């Protein structure tokens, strides 16, 4: 039945509410990303190649870290045709068990990391599936996967994703004996792509990955030869622990949902049991503030009561969330990474204490390298990392960039045009680690500009900047002190000679005495004194000077 309207007469192909209802159906998330693949970093063929390698390497490093294995990664890129490539990515991680093999690679928004509050590179169960989707879209070829958990069998299978249903389709699954007890995953994809080696390239991505993950050994076998990124430490990073959410910044809607589904018998135990840093007395404080009885069943809390509870949670003083859910790079490793990569005069690294945005703990680290062989002209180079993953795209719309630009670098002895990057022989490394990184897109290329995040990055940079400033200042000071002595020493012979001409007294003793005074250094005035001030010509009308020439 067509809806009637006072003004517009419905015409033949107009739809009624019923027509529209008939067309409604659910869309699979795989279909959604198939159509929107630029959201995952596949907007063009050269970026697609980098994105695939990035997703593979991120997954491998996460898996190795979870299992406490020192990572050995091998990435192979082989050119098959003008715009056709084979990419193989292999790791020595724990592998995937047979029961989950299909889902782990063939179903989007499926994974182990989404819900846990614990730092990891991947999170949403999209990355490697996106790569497989891209391969099947551009070449129609299935992914070839090998994996073993180190048991007797190595599984080999081919996989496509059924996008309509967001389900894996496995073909040609075989097993082979595993004498070496190999464990890990190897993924082979055939894709359409364009290969570049400059700027935003696989090279640059792996170089920066090596800086952030110095315990990984990475071999890159590219179209133009082999590159090896050696391990510089055998110590694995501190293992991040899973935590409960912190009351600060948790959203009201989430709180209401938690209360609806919790197994806790009363609000007090709910608060203590499901949040970090809430002990008995904090819980009591919160409940008192919210005017709620401790014994109330969480599910019975009405919406306006939940609102009061939510406000109270933000008001009570609590210690910061536990830091062990985050695995920073650490100051030592940042410095070592920069030293390995860059020939500079000065290095400094700062790891900030963890902080919280919207209930999510995060930690910021900053490294600076200055002077030496770094390019003294032009803007400083910025290395952005999120959970140890280098970010190569969308620099201009990233919270890290914004923070770097907002810092007043002139205080630290560097030049800077207003609101821009600092200028000078400087590399700025910023690492943002969090249980949940707020990327601006699923392609994970830039961090959203939350004020709390920008503020913390700025604090870290300022801290590092102060170290840098004292280096720059002391370097300048010693240079100036020396220059000053040299200046007087240059003038003394002329002054002594002039005085000899004026008075007829021998210049030699005058010269000696003046030189002794320079060495003693006591008399030397550095600040411009009155003389200079009153002598500036500008104070006089310009013509006046002309009158007496």
């Amino acid at each position, binding site marked *: 039945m067509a809806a009637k309207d006072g003004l517009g007469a419905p015409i033949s192909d107009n739809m009624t509410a019923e027509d529209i209802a008939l067309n409604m159906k659910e869309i699979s998330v795989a279909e959604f990303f198939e159509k929107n693949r630029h959201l995952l970093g596949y907007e063009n063929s050269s970026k697609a190649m980098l994105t695939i390698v990035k997703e593979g390497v991120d997954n491998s490093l996460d898996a190795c870290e979870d299992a406490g294995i020192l990572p050995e990664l091998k990435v192979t890129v082989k050119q098959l045709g003008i715009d056709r490539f084979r990419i193989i990515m292999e790791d020595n991680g724990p592998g995937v068990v047979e029961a989950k093999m299909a889902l782990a690679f063939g179903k989007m928004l499926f994974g182990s990391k989404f819900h846990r509050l614990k730092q990891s590179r991947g999170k949403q169960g999209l990355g490697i599936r996106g790569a497989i989707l891209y391969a099947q879209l551009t070449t129609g070829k299935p992914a070839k996967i090998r994996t073993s958990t180190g048991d007797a069998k190595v599984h080999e299978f081919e996989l496509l994703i059924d996008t309509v249903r967001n389900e894996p389709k496995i073909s040609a699954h075989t097993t082979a004996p595993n004498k070496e007890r190999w464990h890990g995953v190897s993924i082979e994809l055939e894709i359409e792509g364009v290969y570049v080696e400059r700027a935003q390239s696989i090279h640059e991505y792996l170089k920066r990955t090596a800086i952030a993950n110095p315990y990984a050994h990475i071999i890159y076998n590219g179209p133009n030869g082999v590159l090896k990124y050696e391990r510089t430490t055998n110590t694995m990073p501190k293992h991040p622990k899973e935590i409960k959410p912190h009351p600060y910044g948790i959203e009201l809607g989430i709180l209401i949902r938690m209360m609806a589904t919790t197994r806790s018998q009363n609000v007090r135990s709910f608060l203590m049991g499901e949040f970090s840093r809430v002990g008995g007395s904090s819980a009591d404080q919160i409940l008192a503030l919210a005017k709620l009885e401790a014994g109330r069943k969480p599910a019975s809390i009405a919406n306006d009561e939940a609102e009061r509870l939510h406000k109270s949670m933000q008001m009570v003083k609590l210690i910061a969330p536990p830091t062990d859910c985050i695995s920073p790079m650490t100051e030592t490793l940042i410095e070592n990474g920069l030293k390995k990569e860059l020939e500079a005069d000065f290095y400094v690294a700062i790891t900030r204490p963890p902080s919280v945005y919207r209930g999510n703990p995060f930690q910021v680290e900053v490294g600076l390298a200055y002077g030496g062989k770094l390019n003294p002209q032009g803007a400083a180079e910025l290395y952005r990392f999120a959970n140890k993953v280098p970010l190569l795209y969308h620099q201009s719309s990233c919270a890290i960039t914004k923070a770097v630009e907002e810092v007043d670098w002139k205080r630290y002895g560097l030049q800077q045009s207003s609101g821009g990057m600092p200028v000078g022989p400087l590399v700025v490394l910023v690492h943002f680690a969090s249980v949940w990184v707020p990327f601006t897109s699923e392609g994970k290329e830039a961090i959203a500009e939350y004020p709390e995040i920008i503020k913390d990055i700025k604090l870290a940079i300022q801290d590092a900047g102060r170290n840098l400033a004292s280096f720059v200042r002391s370097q300048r000071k010693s240079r100036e002190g020396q220059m000053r002595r040299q200046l007087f020493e240059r003038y003394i012979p002329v002054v002594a000679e002039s005085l000899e001409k004026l008075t007829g007294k021998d210049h030699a003793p005058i010269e000696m005495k003046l030189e002794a005074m320079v060495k003693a250094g006591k008399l030397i005035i550095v600040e411009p004194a009155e003389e200079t001030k009153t002598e500036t010509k500008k104070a006089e009308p310009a013509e006046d000077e002309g009158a*007496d020439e």
Partner: protein
Amino acid sequence: MAERNPKEKLVKMGNDIIKEVDAKENPKIEIPIRSLSNIIYNDKSKSLSIGDKTSKRFFFNVAHAKKFMQTTMVAAFCKELIEGKIHTNLRDMFYNLKRTLKDSEENTFDEQSESDPIVVDIEVALDMLREQLHLGADVRGRVVGNVSIVDRGDVVNWGKLGSGGWAIPSIVEEITFKSVDAKFILVIEKNAAFERLHEDKFWQKHNCIIITTQGQAARGCRRLIQRLSAEFKLPVYVFCDSDPYGWYIYSVIKFGSMSLAHQSDRLGTPNARYIGLTVSDIEEFGLDKFTIRAKDVDIKRAKDMMKYEWFQAPEWQKELKLLVDKKKKAELEALSGRGLRFMTEEYLPKKIKNKDFLP
């Protein structure tokens, strides 16, 4: 004043410095300040003089060291000039003292603009004249009139030098006046106006001396005006552009300049009067079509001048204010807009007849 023994003064300056070195004190040279804050205007004598504020130039001061060195160099150079009885000029001095310091890329002086003010420093510090240091100033200015002088033994008649006139040297101390037949002196800022008056025989008709300063008056020119005016009781009329620069030229001829305030009694001519041009002339003589728009810098300059003690006469305050308000300048050449002989035959005769001068 200050006429005796310049050499002794220079030697004493050197000895004072050496005494400080021996006493392990920071060697210094004391120099009177020459900025507006230390200039005293004497309304009675109509002249500027320098106050007693001084500044100290220390050797062991990063900001002073080089100037200190340069000051000793210039002092030593002048002492040698006096001993050798040689005269020279500022440019020669600069070249003579310019050299590269040992084991460096640095020069004692890079530009003449560095050495010139040092000479003024020494003049002021030792209360001496540049000429006493055997340094000549800029040569600028020409003169014509019924005057005979003796210079280096030659008799020169300023009225018999054809179209050129007599070029005024930098030092006029040593010329003597043999005969002076004139009723007044007309000092003209611009050469072109001077030539017009010369061609029109203005100085013969009006029995006067005409002098062109060719811009800001050089020392020789100012001293010549002062000597003629003082020695022969001649009134002096100054004829400049109607703009702050022209008026400043007049004020320097009359009161002396700020940077040579200590020599006003030798270089200033307090009885000088200003004949024109003025902003009021623009209307009175119908020059509006030939004016030039004043620039921001002119306005700013005029406002500054309104504050100078020696421009406080109400007549001058009026002209300065008119310029600020109307934003119009007029050059001497504007008069030829009214006809080529307007200046010779109308403007100047009328002004002189009516004694229409500014103080």
